[in-house]
């Protein structure tokens, strides 16, 4: 799909609308195809079949939903856009800027493959968001602004195409750094469980959604109270159950010291669960969950959650 061809068709508003619709539908199809290739490639590196199928099915649904939504928007632009409001222009700017910045950061840190995988999973939503303000400008006759924004859309499209290309060439490309850890796994928020050969990686998350599987299935970690360094390996809180008396005691005596050691060592701190979901941070009565306490402590110590690497950084 040549996204730049969209811009060439902008001689009239009607042409623009048709081109945008065609382009988006094609883009959606390409995304699904690209994801298939990515899933195929990922399979070669040890991600289990169930997860691969889930990622593929979900992203296919996302792409289809976004394509359908965009088609609906373009068929009834005025009715739809009236309800969206004037702030939609900012959506595209944010999406585009974020993609470019995230891609550059990922490339600089040698994590381009993770970025592509993450981007593909949510790509349909992002491009779906992008086409809305473009369509609005087109239907309002602001062809100049539409062209400018179409170039941004083309940038997103190129990223998608690039991801597809990477997916088709996985064994020889950026994922080579992951080959060293053929059993890496992905958590509920998309974090990749991959060791840093030069550091201890401390993994934090909700037990039921992530840590149970990570501790017992992936790391096969026995119950222990060793919070010391594990260069090239992982630390996760997995003490005997009878060390728990109540939330405050457990935090003060066990969990906080465990986390403090990770902070003092300068561990990589990987977040297996999403700290930007209240259901992970708070119990029903408003008190903090164990994971919530960990997130609070890290923020108090100057850390912030990085959406790209799914880790806490200073």
């Amino acid at each position, binding site marked *: 799909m040549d996204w730049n061809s969209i811009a060439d068709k902008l001689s009239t508003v009607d042409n623009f609308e048709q081109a945008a619709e065609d382009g988006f539908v094609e883009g959606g199809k390409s995304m699904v195809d690209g994801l298939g290739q990515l899933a195929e490639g990922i399979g070669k590196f040890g991600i289990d079949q169930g997860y691969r199928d889930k990622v593929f099915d*979900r992203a296919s*649904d*996302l792409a*289809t*939903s976004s394509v359908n939504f965009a088609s609906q928007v373009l068929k009834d632009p005025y009715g739809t856009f009236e309800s969206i409001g004037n702030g939609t222009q900012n959506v595209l700017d944010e999406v585009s800027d974020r993609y470019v910045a995230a891609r550059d950061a990922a490339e600089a840190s040698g994590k381009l493959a993770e970025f592509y995988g993450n981007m593909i999973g949510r790509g349909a939503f992002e491009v779906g968001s992008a086409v809305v303000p473009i369509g609005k400008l087109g239907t309002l006759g602001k062809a100049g602004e539409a062209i400018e924004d179409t170039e941004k859309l083309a940038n997103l499209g190129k990223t998608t195409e690039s991801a597809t290309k990477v997916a088709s060439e996985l064994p020889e490309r950026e994922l080579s750094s992951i080959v060293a850890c053929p059993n890496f796994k992905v958590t*509920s928020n998309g974090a990749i469980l991959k060791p840093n050969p030069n550091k201890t990686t401390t993994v934090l998350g*909700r*037990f*039921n959604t992530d*840590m*149970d599987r990570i501790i017992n299935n992936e790391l096969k970690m026995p119950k222990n109270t060793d919070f010391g360094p594990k260069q090239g390996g992982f630390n996760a*809180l997995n003490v005997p*159950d*009878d060390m*728990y008396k*109540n*939330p405050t005691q*457990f935090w003060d005596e066990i*969990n906080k010291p465990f986390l403090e050691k990770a902070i003092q060592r300068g561990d990589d701190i990987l977040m297996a669960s999403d*700290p*930007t*979901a*209240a*259901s*992970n*941070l*708070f*119990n*029903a*009565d*408003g*008190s903090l*969950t*164990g994971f*919530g306490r960990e*997130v*609070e402590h890290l*923020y*108090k110590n100057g850390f*912030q*959650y990085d959406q790209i690497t799914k880790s806490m950084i200073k």
Partner: protein
Amino acid sequence: MNWIAPYRNHIMKHLKYLEENSFSLIGEDDFSLTFNDGNILLVFTVERYSDSLSVWVEYLGNNPVDDNKYRLDIIMRLYLQKDMRDAFNGTSDEDKARLVKNYVDFVLNNKAQLFGKLFPLAKEYHEFNKKIALSALERFAKK
């Protein structure tokens, strides 16, 4: 250790009532119940190293826009349009019994409105879930 143990008896007291309303118990570790009419899974669970009961509703149907798992206390808060946190307070055995009853009553009283093939409050749920978390993170950073 079975972390759901403090709530087990209280849940079991409602089991017959739940079964009469199309729920079937499929596991006791976390008390998972399937709701046959609406194709949902209701899971009573207590996280490791914790005392707090959480009830999760998982929609088993095909909903492409989210992960289909919702925490029931947040659903209640959104659906009833009021802050429910006080209703989940308490550590005594009576508190636990009341808490389980509140959850069960809510599910059975509102199943027709809430537990169809798709969750009608999905968008509101995710927006609320994220908004509260981001606000908390901002607050944490200022401490």
